């Protein structure tokens, strides 16, 4: 076993170190250096990617449930919105949320976003279950802070930098990465010719030669997907009963 021992120091070295320590003590008694943030009169400035209170935009939600599936703390439950909407939207139980923000990362519609709010007060546990409608607008905010504070390391020491400005609590959400997709037929011979795809396409991207007389004259139905018009919404893929349409990445 190895024993830790005090390093051998000469008398001169010892005296030097004592003097430095006394120097710091004297300096602190004249200009004290505290690391305390005087919340709520001042607030710490948070980075834009701070994982705080969640906000939700139902307009952007595609009701995919991904946030609820991915939440490792099981804090997200989907609740059905009243008719005629009938869609399912997330609710967040802050009694469970561990602020990992996997939900935000998983949201392909960009409906969930972060804020720098980290100090919400609740009267009781039940209130921590935040309903969808409570997530659209931020909670009531009472701000008493006049300054914002940042930690800075200067000359090997931690300093507080105070600025007479109030830090914004909201950040612009990063838009979700869109992968351009286009609908294509992967098994032409299995097509029924039912034109359900044409019917459901809201962009008019699918057309067929079903006009009066044409079918009878030609004996074949011609189907066409206009890849310029196709927005890659996937409706046709969902509705094709033979499941022969696929969304594929749009080529360059």
């Amino acid at each position, binding site marked *: 076993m190895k024993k830790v021992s005090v390093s051998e120091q000469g008398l001169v070295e010892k005296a030097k170190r004592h003097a430095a320590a006394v120097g710091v003590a004297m300096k602190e008694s004249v200009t004290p250096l505290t690391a305390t943030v005087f919340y709520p009169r001042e607030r710490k400035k948070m980075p834009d990617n701070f994982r705080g209170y969640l906000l939700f935009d139902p307009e952007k939600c595609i009701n995919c449930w991904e946030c609820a599936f991915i939440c490792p703390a099981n804090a997200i439950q989907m609740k059905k919105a009243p008719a005629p909407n009938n869609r399912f939207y997330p609710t967040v139980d802050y009694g469970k949320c561990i602020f990992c923000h996997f939900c935000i990362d998983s949201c392909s519609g960009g409906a969930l976003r972060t804020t720098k709010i980290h100090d919400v007060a609740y009267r009781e546990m039940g209130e921590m279950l935040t309903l969808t409608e409570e997530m659209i607008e931020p909670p009531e905010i009472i701000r008493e802070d006049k300054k914002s504070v940042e930690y800075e390391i200067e000359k090997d020491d931690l300093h507080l930098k105070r600025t007479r400005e109030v830090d914004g609590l909201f950040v612009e959400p990063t838009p979700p990465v869109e992968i351009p997709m286009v609908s294509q*037929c*992967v098994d*032409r011979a299995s097509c029924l010719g039912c034109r359900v795809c044409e019917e459901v396409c809201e962009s008019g991207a699918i057309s067929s030669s079903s006009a009066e007389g044409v079918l*009878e004259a030609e004996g*074949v139905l011609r*189907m066409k*997907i206009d890849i310029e018009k196709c927005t890659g919404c996937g409706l046709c893929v969902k509705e094709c009963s033979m499941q022969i349409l696929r969304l*594929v990445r749009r*080529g*360059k």
Partner: protein
Amino acid sequence: MAAVAAETTTGQSEWEVAVPEKPLKEKVYFENLKAQVIDTELCSRCLTCAAVCPALPEGITLTADDKVGFPDYEEKCLDCGACVRVCPRFEYEPKSGLGEYTDFIAGQSKRFKGQDGAMVTELIVSAIEMGLIDRGLFVGRDNRWATNIFHVRDPEQLAITTLGGTKYTFASVLPELKRAVLLTKSGVGVVGTPCIVSGVRKLQQEFPIFREKVKLVVGLFCTENFHHTEISDYLQKKGVDFSKLVKTDITMGKFIATMTNKTVKFKVKALEKILPSGCNVCTDFTAVEADASVGSVGSAAGFSTVAVRNENARRVVEFIKKRGYADFGEGKPEELAFLVGHKKKRAENIPGFQDQEDK
């Protein structure tokens, strides 16, 4: 970026669908089907048309009287013609006889209990074990003996003892086959009466997904089948208690309903009144288009007769032999002669048949 370019070549944006001819030019396809097959009482109730009809959920279904129909076709039919393309009786070419076979054998499974020798169950389960298919469609039943379809993926599911055995009631095998084909990875096995087998072949002829995914088609010998309401009403009148019913069988011209406490027997002839019109024009006894056909006549009691027709079925039988899963013996094709002939005569009931003969 090479990968992206490759992905876009996995599909096509232009294609053509050959549309079938319409005898009634002004009418939608369903009305053509109705005029040619359903109203003429040729419809076998195989439900091939319902398997592909895209006008979901209101499309081709069973109507209240247990027949094939499309109540709101004038409004809802998409006029695609898929039903007409696949209906085996739209341009009906009646098949009959023993059909082609490479082996004609008798078999009795050592693993399973069934109607006869449980060779149907054995063939499907062995095909799953060989990896030829990942699921087989079985016709099960509820406690009123109405049929329902099961996807068997593991031999252990055969613990549901109602999956083997004959139900003398039509079953929605083919609509379920469509679902199975979309779900399967390696392939599907399907069991059915000759009319169902013909439906499978039509689906395979028309649509590649069925060609690629249906890997084993087992046909059953069949003289007739019944609508559920009609047969259950009749059986109840005969004193059959469904809660105690364990087996139904037709042998030697007798319908035998075996219950836990007693047995009810009567002549099949008595069922002529409720013989479905589609069966009345059906000439195929042995399912000539199947990969293997299985029945009761042609082998000793307790054995199933198996006519092995195609290579895939032959390989499954080889596998069963190698594993020692079943006892085998000789099948006697000559014993089928009466029923084969009996069904061949039904061609006389096909409308237009007489006219053709007269000419």
